[in-house]
């Protein structure tokens, strides 16, 4: 038990330290360009947590990146760097739109989004397993292919005849209910549930046992009667489910759009943000829930940060980037401890 707690606390502390470093260096950059970091951070917090609608938008932002982070995390646990969440988001979103227009039902839409998202995970999985193509290379390429393929569907066959600036809409009957009159949909709850399911799969099922074993030691896993190839394929598929869901939720439960807008501006970038979330959440579903809410907070707070402190919103990406670089430093905590010792 004690080891379990320790195994949890250290990564948590390291992530917190990375967050601190991000804010600290962010403050220096703000100062360098003549902005007040205190004001910026005050308004950031106030905007994201200072009101009910702020919290709702924090959680809205957290929803898709929580799901795409799961995609990255489950493959990372299987020893794979799957950065193809982005493509599955696109396909999940367009599938949800197409199929809810065939049959306007919430469950059907979510299901088809997840299914198509998962299918888009397969090419990279097969390339990895059967052709030995490194997944970082293949998923980068596949993301571009997904981008153009879905863009074609969005501008062509599924463009909205009455409003050419977006696709056909998800019918009202297939929209996710909103929570308590806010703009936050039950999609957030779905994301939490998905995180718990991923946790359950990884640590409480035979499948997850096999995936984790393959991730830590493929030779040992094979010896243990596990097929690492199957584990890899499953990790892509489950990851695709999560990202496909992210896409579906964005179009079925993110007012006001309920469609993909031209240029796919309302569904892109979540895959990459998710990687950052997963890394800060230490590839643990529970850590990811926290990290996603933290990243959501950053995004939700930027409006007030601009209004209140006049700070350009891109600084938030700068801070996010610094946090991820800091997370990459192994034994961050130990380094800091040693520094303290040296100074003392």
């Amino acid at each position, binding site marked *: 038990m004690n080891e379990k707690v320790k195994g949890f606390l250290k990564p948590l502390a390291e992530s917190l330290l990375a967050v601190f470093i991000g804010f600290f260096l962010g403050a220096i950059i703000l100062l360098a360009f003549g902005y007040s970091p205190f004001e910026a951070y005050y308004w950031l917090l106030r905007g994201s947590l200072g009101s009910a609608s702020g919290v709702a938008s924090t959680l809205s932002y957290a929803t898709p990146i929580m799901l795409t982070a799961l995609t990255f995390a489950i493959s990372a646990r299987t020893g794979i760097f799957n950065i193809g969440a982005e493509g599955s988001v696109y396909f999940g979103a367009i599938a949800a739109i197409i199929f809810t227009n065939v049959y306007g039902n919430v469950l059907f839409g979510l299901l088809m989004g997840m299914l198509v998202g998962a299918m888009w995970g397969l090419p990279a999985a097969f390339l990895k397993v059967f052709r030995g193509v490194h997944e970082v290379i293949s998923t980068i390429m596949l993301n571009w292919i997904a981008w153009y393929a879905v863009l074609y569907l969005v501008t062509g066959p599924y463009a909205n005849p009455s409003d050419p600036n977006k696709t056909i809409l998800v019918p009202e009957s297939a929209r996710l209910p909103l929570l308590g009159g806010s703009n936050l949909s039950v999609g957030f709850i779905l994301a939490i549930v998905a995180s718990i399911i991923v946790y359950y799969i990884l640590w409480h*099922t*035979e499948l997850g046992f096999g995936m984790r*074993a393959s991730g*830590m*030691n493929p*030779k040992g896993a094979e*010896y*243990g009667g596990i097929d690492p190839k199957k584990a890899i394929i499953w990790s892509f598929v489950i990851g695709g489910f999560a990202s496909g869901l992210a896409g579906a939720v964005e179009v079925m439960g993110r007012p006001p759009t309920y469609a993909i807008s031209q240029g796919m501006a309302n569904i892109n970038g979540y895959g990459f943000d998710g990687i950052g979330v997963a890394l800060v959440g230490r590839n643990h579903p529970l850590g990811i829930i926290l990290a996603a809410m933290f990243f959501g907070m950053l995004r939700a707070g930027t409006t007030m940060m601009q209004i209140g402190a006049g700070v350009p919103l891109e600084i938030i990406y700068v801070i996010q980037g610094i946090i991820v670089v800091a997370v990459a430093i192994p034994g961050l905590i130990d380094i800091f401890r040693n520094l303290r010792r040296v100074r003392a």
Partner: protein
Amino acid sequence: MEEVPLIQMKNIVKVYSDGTKALKGVDFSVKKGEIHGLLGENGAGKTTLMKILSGMIKPTEGKIYINGEEVHFKSPADALEKGIGIVHQHFTLVEVFNALENIILGMEGHSLFSKIDVVKATEKLQKLMDELNFQVPLDIPVEKLPVGVQQRIEILKMLFRDVDILILDEPTAVLTPIEVKELFRVLNLLKSQGKTIIFISHKLKEVIEITDRVTVLRKGELIGTIDTKNATPQVLAKMMVGREVVLRVEKPPKEPGAPILKVENLWVKGDRGEDAVKGLSFEVHAGEIFGIAGVEGNGQTELIDAITGLRTVERGKIILNGKDITDRPPRELYDLGLAHIPEDRINMGLIVDMSVAENSILGLQWREKFKGPLNSIRWNAVREHAKKLVEQFDVVVPGINAPAKSLSGGNQQKLIVAREVSKEPVLIVASQPTRGVDVASTEYIRNYLVKLRNENKAVLLVSADLDEVTQLSDRMAVMYEGEFMGIVKPEEVTEEEIGMMMGGIRRE
């Protein structure tokens, strides 16, 4: 007047970052121009001591003097500077480079940015090889060369650097007797040229044959240094192991039962596409230990991999309990009653980052008693299982939730044995089951294998430790270049005969 030793290491302590105390205050000295043996069991600290002397790692405590002058090695470069070179136990060759490139690496002989003068380097090397009458092909990637040749390259690499002190870490472990002879010729030649050589080995006879003096280590401590001319195998063995009696296993006679494992004309390819197993046929019966001896690298690994479902078979058949199991995956084999104690416990037998409990079901995770609804694992049952194994086999663990990497090597091995036995197998394939394991655990594991045999299980044992094979086996084979040089009863052959088989001479 006392002569100043060429090398003096004083009170060397080494604690590895994981807390392992590999050396506990060792003194060691070598005279100029001698061949000095370094003897000790697995894990005694021989390699650690030599890595310190060659600058690979730094001692936690202690001082090193060369020619009476204190030195501080920060890296192998510093040691090479002082004329100390080492041939590592595990070769350090760049596999895709050829011999020439491997040998001149770091000694290319001119500015970093000018073209490598291959002709000149070849000439220089050829001269060196001719002097010693010690030839290697220079233009073939070393991964395509046999280990014996690779070792020559390692030695040439050091001589090319004009080292005065040459350290050889278990150089004979992978050599055939003929290659050993050739090596000894060269070592004597080098000695006559005034070089100093440190020779590490487990093999008493070799040490007695080639060295002038011997130092013995045991569990990180210096036992003593003696002149070889005063040494006998018995004396050295006692120093090494710490007790007079060498391990003995009680093995009551037993009639073998029905054949459990049948291997028919089996061909298996190695990692480099070569034929590693060439048409083997044999049977292992219930209530029998069938041992396979031989120098490592003669196809044992590939044979075991094929039998345990980890490598595809080129040709031939494997039959377990009457069922054809050729090319079936491990999972199916385990369900049919196979247990496998693999030779590499860190990279195969355990997932060292997983907990003891998780490791206790590796290969059993799908069994009924651990499975709950929805593909779930019943962790309570797993923990009980792990506790039982740990108790029964006396595995020392910090806790069953601790990662397997926090166990000592011997205890890791015991955990594997315990788990494999818990599969309730009909056939146990045990590969190097006591390598790197302390005496007590070795005894335990060997006796357990006999116990299994007595319980009428079939045991296939592969070991590089000849004593282990001869003591445990009811029948044994000696493997050489993918073939059996003969299948014999251990009590019916002499050690010389086995030695000849290991060197590739077939017994009729």
